[in-house]
């Protein structure tokens, strides 16, 4: 599929301190986002995620490198008309009501009065905020701001959506709602660029990911290609066995009363363990193979990076 966003060899440094010292934040970031996919952008704090996003949105100017949105530079009107952006910890004009707030952004896109009203009503319904329509934003909770912020990002029906930590600060129900909305937007054909710390959510909805550490993208690709199907270990909960007999078979993690949680690393030992339990008339309560997760890869790469 055609790339809607191309970032090529992006460098950005800031001068910090009283006696200005150059600090390089981005050290040659390159990535490409294809049309219609949900792209996850991961990285620890200070890795350069938000700086990349700001370069893409034209809020800061890179020292070197190129950004193309639909083939246009970030400041071109053709690029801006087709994108939506929800910042991390949304900050909006808190003296406006939700409807006034959306109306303000709709005006910037030159929407006609009738279309504007319809669009605002549809978006408030989509993010579940119809009842807060006439409430000032200063009275909104963090989750409500996040929802109305998403509505603002969708006001121009953008083909490309940038979401910076969209699930942060939401309760489990709110997170699920927002995840469902993101997936629905993808089904409508939108491309979504998602920065998040919540790896579980990224793993659930992203098609491809890029991991940035220390200003460099150290890995990117389809989620399936990054995460192997290999079983890392098996978690076994059992009872009726003396912990001392289990030492050769695995690593006891915890005990609760008679129950022992054991990590078995070698697949051959599973058979031996079952035979032992059978012989000692013990009991196996659960046996869960743990495959590699995005978190495992992320932690490993951050350590190496």
């Amino acid at each position, binding site marked *: 599929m055609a790339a809607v966003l191309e970032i090529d060899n992006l460098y950005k440094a800031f001068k910090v301190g009283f006696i200005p010292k150059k600090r390089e934040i981005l050290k040659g970031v390159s990535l490409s986002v294809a049309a219609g996919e949900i792209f996850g952008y991961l990285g620890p704090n200070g890795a350069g995620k938000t700086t990349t996003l700001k370069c893409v949105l034209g809020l800061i*100017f890179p020292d070197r490198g190129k950004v193309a949105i639909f083939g246009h530079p970030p400041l071109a009107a053709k690029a*801006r*008309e087709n994108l939506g952006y929800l910042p991390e910890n949304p*900050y*909006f004009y808190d003296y406006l009501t939700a409807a006034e707030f959306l109306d303000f952004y709709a005006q910037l896109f030159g929407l006609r009065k009738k279309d504007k009203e319809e669009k605002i009503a549809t978006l408030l319904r989509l993010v579940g905020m119809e009842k807060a329509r006439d409430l000032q934003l200063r009275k909104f909770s963090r989750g409500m701001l996040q929802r109305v912020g998403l509505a603002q990002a969708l006001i121009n029906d953008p083909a490309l959506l940038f979401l910076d930590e969209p699930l942060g600060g939401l309760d489990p129900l709110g997170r699920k709602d927002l995840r469902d909305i993101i997936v629905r937007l993808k089904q409508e054909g939108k491309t979504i660029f998602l920065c998040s710390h919540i790896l579980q959510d990224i793993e659930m909805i992203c098609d491809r990911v890029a991991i940035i550490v220390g200003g460099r993208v150290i890995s990117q690709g389809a989620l399936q290609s990054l995460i192997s199907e290999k079983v890392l270990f098996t978690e076994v909960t059992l009872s009726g066995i003396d912990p001392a007999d289990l030492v050769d078979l695995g690593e006891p993690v915890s005990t609760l009363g008679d129950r022992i949680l054991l990590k078995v690393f070698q697949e051959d030992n599973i058979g031996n363990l079952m035979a032992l339990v059978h012989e000692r008339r013990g009991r196996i309560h659960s046996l869960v193979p743990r495959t590699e997760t995005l978190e495992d890869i992320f932690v490993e790469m951050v350590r190496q990076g």
Partner: protein
Amino acid sequence: MKIQTIALNTFKEAIRDRILYLLFFFAAAALAFSRLLAVLAVGDRVKIIKDVGLASISIFGVLMAILIGTGLVYKEIDKKTIYTLLSKPIQRWQFLLGKFFGLVLTLFIMTLAMGLIFLVIVLLHTGKLEGRMLLAILFIFIELVLITAVSILFSCFSTPILSSIFSLSFYLIGHLSWGLETLIQKTRSGAARMALRGVSAILPDLENFNFKTEIVHGLAIDPRFYFFSALYGLVYTLFILALAVLIFKKRDFV
């Protein structure tokens, strides 16, 4: 259209600012006080009312322009509201001009309100509506437009406190720079005189907008003075706005 949208939003923001009402209250109090002062003072009471009244409109107008203007752009950057705004199809110069016109609209309404109070006070005292006073108020407003541009220029790269100090200095220098002309005349021709001439050309001369004395005392003014003063205000404001746009255009929003 985009500039208008931002200007109206800025207007909404400015009229919700408590500082505006506080200054308006003090301005109204000062206007009322001018009547009291006229009773106590020796001399032409009407002239004292007019002098103090026009000076109050000017001073409180300038304070409004500086105290609100210096926070306008800075607050957008500090509160990060600018992130969402500039990700939309709007150019940075449109944003800056929107902010400028929003505050100019606010100041227009405030100057009009202060002017009306002033005219009513004069009317109560003299029994006649003195339309000529509006001319003095118009030039106070032109000066406020320039001070607004200056405040916005400083707020593009500095904190509200520093911007306020810079803008206030601009205002004070602007009203004292005419003294340089005397100094130039007393300086022997040479490098020093040339340097003083250069400084004099760069420094603003806000006395160009001060027609208070002439109007209060009913002195005749050549209409060309009005025209050139208005033109000076327009050109200087455009120059300052162009400078602000240049600085803002290259700024990183970290």
